[in-house]
């Protein structure tokens, strides 16, 4: 049924069998043709736009790609202006992944917990309001989180970092250099980014949890399951696709998080397991930090392309997982 269908009965000529086929003509009006073209055009605009983003980032970064080649992905140093430029994204890529990892470790359980709370545990009357608050949390701009994290939360977390490194410093993850600054660390940046990831995970997991068939839930309860038993046996397996997909989408957000991380990390390429101490940078934060410095433009474009491809891949995998899962078919990411 692609257009308005005008049914034209063949006419009640006598003697014809009653089951005569009705010939249906599809007549496309001018408005319809225009409508088809206009909507198709906007759809194609989207396809073109995203492709063009990738192509132009590649084109403007060509100076870097031709001088560094694949070594761009395996070099940590960033010396764009010297006579023998040596730039590489590996140090920043490491920081990006570490910050996103810390954020995910905190945000995924928290987000799933919030989704579960709103879908199942909260008083009925409060659910809509709580979801509104989660949406509000998602609407708070990154720069406000950055401000709060930098000027306030940081000081509160430093004592925890100091305690961890003093008493558990033998574990490599908690080790720091002697007398190291404990501000502006991967750990703190990860905590702040996790606050921005939680609403994404929470919204999507709530959306799949509320779709759990009531019959299956009641069945579990009728068999004597406790509420958590029901959640574990019915809701969590049912919502698995949504939880994984939501976490991946959150990962995409964490990888691309820019302004807050730019404030919270010193933005120098750095590879180290000392996550509690000052240092490091992420691709997005580094790009924001170097904005307006024309010398580094090609290398920033190249780094931007790496970030673009990374987040694109993450998001594509996420939406595929959600769409293919049992619960996710009708869920909007």
């Amino acid at each position, binding site marked *: 049924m692609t257009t308005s269908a005008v049914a034209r009965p063949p006419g009640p000529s006598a003697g014809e069998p009653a089951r005569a086929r009705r010939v249906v003509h599809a007549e496309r009006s001018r*408005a319809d043709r225009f409508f088809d073209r206009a909507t198709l055009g906007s759809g194609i605009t989207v396809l073109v736009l995203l492709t063009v983003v990738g192509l132009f*980032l590649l084109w403007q970064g060509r100076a870097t790609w031709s001088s560094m080649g694949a070594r761009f992905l395996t070099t940590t140093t960033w010396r764009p202006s010297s006579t023998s430029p040596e730039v590489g994204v590996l140090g920043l890529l490491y920081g990006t992944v570490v910050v996103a990892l810390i954020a995910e470790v905190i945000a995924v359980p928290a987000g799933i917990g919030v989704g579960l709370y709103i879908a199942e545990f909260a008083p009925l009357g409060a659910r809509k309001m709580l979801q509104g608050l989660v949406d*509000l949390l998602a609407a708070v701009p990154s720069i406000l989180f950055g401000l709060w994290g930098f000027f306030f939360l940081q000081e509160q977390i430093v004592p925890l970092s100091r305690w961890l490194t003093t008493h558990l410093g033998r574990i490599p993850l908690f080790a720091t250099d002697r007398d190291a600054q404990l501000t502006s660390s991967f750990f703190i940046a990860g905590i702040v980014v996790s606050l921005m990831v939680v609403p994404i995970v929470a919204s999507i997991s709530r959306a799949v949890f509320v779709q759990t068939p009531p019959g299956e839930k009641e069945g579990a309860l009728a068999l004597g399951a406790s509420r958590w038993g029901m959640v574990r046996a019915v809701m969590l397996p049912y919502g698995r696709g949504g939880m994984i997909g939501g976490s991946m989408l959150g990962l995409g957000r964490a990888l691309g998080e820019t302004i807050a991380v730019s404030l919270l990390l010193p933005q120098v390429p750095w590879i180290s397991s000392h996550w509690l101490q000052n240092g490091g940078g992420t691709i997005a934060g580094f790009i*924001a930090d170097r904005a307006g410095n024309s010398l580094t433009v090609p290398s920033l474009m190249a780094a931007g392309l790496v970030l673009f491809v990374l987040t694109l891949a993450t998001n594509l995998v996420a939406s595929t997982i959600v769409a293919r899962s049992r619960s996710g078919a009708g869920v909007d990411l």
Partner: protein
Amino acid sequence: MTLASEVTGTGTAVPGAGHLPYANGASAAGVGGGAGGPGRRPPRHDPSSQRTPRRTPRRPATLTAEDWGYALASAVSSLSLCWLAFSVLTDGIGWFGFWLVAYLVFLGMLFVATYQRLGRLAAVDRVMTVVVWSVMGVVLVPLVWLVVYILVKGLPGLSLGFFTHTQRGVTPTQPATAGGGLHAIVGTVEQVGIALLISLPLGAMTAVFLNETRSSLRRPVRIFVDAMSGMPSVVSGLFIYATLIIPLAKDNALFGYNGFMAALALSVTMMPTICRAIEVVLRLVPAGLREAGLALGASRARVVWSVVLPTASSGVATAAILGIAREAGETAPLLFTAFGYNLMNANPFSGPQESLPLFIWRFIREPSAVEITRGFTGALVLMALILLLFAAARVLGRDRTKARHRRPSLAGLLPGRPPARPIAGVEDNAA
């Protein structure tokens, strides 16, 4: 949640004592297993109840005074233990670490205490219930805290002058109330307005394409829209910089650093947001309305224009407002496009322009406390703007849900009439 969750002990419940779980004090501790499976621990025998085993029904989801007592005791002992560990035995861990550790210890203690009393399943249930409740609180605390913090830090710099003055002639030594952010507010309004003008038609058309046509391109377009909405906003700024500003700025001031470029970068991130929000709303328009329109002989374009869009109009408005709220706070795309400017530049098509996020971003990176306060004042105004927009979107959403029980009116089918009633049960897609 008492639904169907009454667990009766293995024996027969005594009528009369049935709803008094602890009627027979002596057997209370042994009754049932809670959720832990009846019969895990044999009931203590009361000489007076030899003939009929006292098994009373127990609702595992109901918390008794004893449960509360155990929880309270766990909390107190966990706090004291942490106090001992961190204040007496080792050096401090900060309040953040203290509460984190105390919370984990509390969970452990609650588990052990409930396990001793009611068995493993009940213990897991209790602990997970506590976890789920507390996670919700922990997520909301930063939200409130952030709002209060920005309010407290930003208020000292806020005066009426913020809305009427720019930073003209203001030096870093003057108090934070000197000058204002009018130029930033004007810039934000212009940039977001232009971005909306570009992305609302494009987003709405794409949403219509995805939902109202039968094109075979719908699948790739949907995937690309999804991918685009996850694109980091700094990349869209970089994109406009790479595509327009670098190659064209030399010959044409329109493609230099200015508000229009910022609006283009914003619309790249805004379009998928709006498109997906509108698509959700379109999907909720009852198919019967479309079919009725088609059956009356209307063309598909006519049905979309006169039936589908009017029915979904309040949802479209919500989508637009949420898109604005999202973009008003975007900073990263502006760094490469609008660039920032301390004075008024009301012309978005020429010359660098300020906006609220850039205003904040530039001032909080200054070393002086006064400048930082200016930044916080900008943050306060931005936050108030976003909260207002968000509240407006919620109000629109609420109007729709109040109409839940009304049937869609046929008036909306007739072209040229005011929009049909809002549609039922639309949820905002703000995430």
